[in-house]
């Protein structure tokens, strides 16, 4: 199959992670009363970002090893 599934998974969770981190940093702390005072958006955003970027890294690495790809964009997005 020609679509590496790790690419869309990595992409979606990287976007989610970044979104939650930004939201966690800018949101009013009052909304975290229900989550026991923890800024869960910030912390879980970090987890999602790490997961997403790991998936992306695997996907881009196997792409580089498998098919020779002249574009150099893949090295810039690995964490």
């Amino acid at each position, binding site marked *: 199959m020609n*679509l590496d599934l790790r690419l869309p998974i990595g992409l979606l969770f990287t976007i989610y992670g970044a979104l939650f981190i930004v939201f966690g940093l800018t949101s009013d702390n009052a909304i975290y009363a229900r*989550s026991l005072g923890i800024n*869960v958006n910030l912390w879980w955003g970090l987890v999602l970002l790490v997961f997403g970027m790991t998936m992306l890294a695997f996907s881009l690495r196997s792409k580089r090893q498998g098919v020779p790809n002249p574009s150099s964009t893949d090295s810039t997005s690995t964490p």
Partner: protein
Amino acid sequence: MRLGWIDYTVMLLYFVFVLGIGWVLRRFVRSSEDFFLSGRSIPAWIAGLAFISANLGAQEVIGMGASGAKYGMMTSHFYWVGAIPAMVFVGIFMMPFYYGSRARSVPEYLKLRFDEKTRGFNAMTFAVMTVFSSGISMYAFAKLLELLLGWNFHASVLLSAVIVLGYIFLGGLTSAIYNEVLQFFLIVLGFLPLVLLGLKDVGGWAGLTAKLTTVATNAGYPAGAWSESWRHLDSAAANPMGVEWFSMVMGLGFVLSFGYWCTDFLVVQRAMAADSMAAARRTPLLAAFPKMLFPFLVILPGMLAIALHVTRGTFLPLMSDGTPNYNLAVPVMLGHYLPSGLLGLGLTALMASFMSGMAGNVTAFNTVWTYDIYQSYLRPGQSDAHYLRMGQAATVFGIILSGAAAYATTRFNNIMDMLQLVFAFVNAPLFATFLLGMFWRRTTGHGAFFGLLTGTLAAAIQHGLTLPHGATPGLKGGFLGAVVHTYPSEMAQNFWSAIFAWTACFTTTIVISLLTQRTKSDADLTGLVYSLTPRQTDRGLPWYKAPVTLGIIALGLTLVLNVIFW
């Protein structure tokens, strides 16, 4: 609960990605085999995650949460007695026949092994069951969104239908499988913060068991009835599920779980799409590892909810008869702990579980409909392109029928109990047929067919003559006029229905097989029956790829989990 812009953004992104995956995959669908079996090209890890994700529908997330609240830790038996051993069995012993015979579906295997009528019976009942299951997912999805967010019921049915239809229509089974893997990660990462926050709130596992002791003693059970899985199984009166160890192990473990995981095309299809025999055998085995951890993700929220409900006086909304609404355990937990942001992720994970459940059923339905009903009985001998178009059309009307089933689903309190009932009638005898068919070459087509009929009938009669405690005759049993036995619970009644069905099918199949002539020679049965098929050898495979090694590790770890939560 109120959603902010970020929650809607999270949902929207998910919808864009699932449809996008279907869109990208559409150009790989050239033949009916591409559409229905992904061209048999899926790597083992993807097939494995799809194998559990396809089953991760409403009955799993909402139903297991509800059962966790209603029955406590004993719900883990659905995994640690039921699913895992069955998944190991199908990977090691059954997959060589499914994959090796090149059958395109489970009914088609029955046609190769037995005869036309056995295939026809299985194909028809299965088609009805998939539509029904998909309808339950759709109904639960819409009902939940109506309740939580005030969304219009009809609009939600339409939304789920259009999205699932969109990605299956475009990319066929590959699209469903890819999206199931995406949904798997979304469900794990969306629910994990909920479990962690809930546990922190009640003071960890120790705090939870202390609160569950109150739950158990308040309800008149021994102190550990909600937090221990095996200790209270010696009598049905000692635990909230109302079952004893024999019906648990035989009914749920042996009959229902093996029947489901080993013969249900919905899950077997994922392994059939794998890219090699070795990958097909690894599919359920790799799936067993994340699956054994799922109780912590789907049962624990229910246990946390009931612990909070009882010790804080109020937490879950009440039904009209004053009992807590167990089906809302997970959604209420989401609303209670997750702030805007993660709430969107949790709700998206919930939606993903409904959609993966629907999509799994719809892809199984369109395959069985097209190959086993349409191509076999209605229009044989057409071009492959014709059957591909039929498959796409079947996807459309499969979803329309699911919608109809969704509107018909309103009668049971616990979705799980209702699904168990359907499985007991249809699936329970099936495992006896496969067991005999695969391991005893003397089994004949007549034996298999009449065995299945007798088994299904036995389940229906047993159900019709008994009642769970406190129920009135009707859908829940006793519909044959007389009630000869009353079970402590619906769960016990369902387990026993399964045991009766299996035993009836097993014995009838043997008797009729011995009385009838074999119609298939040993040569016909090569690749379909154990004693006539060359053994699969694991030699040359590294240990982490060898099915038997993986199976033993999975069973060993499951045993450890059983002992820890004994």
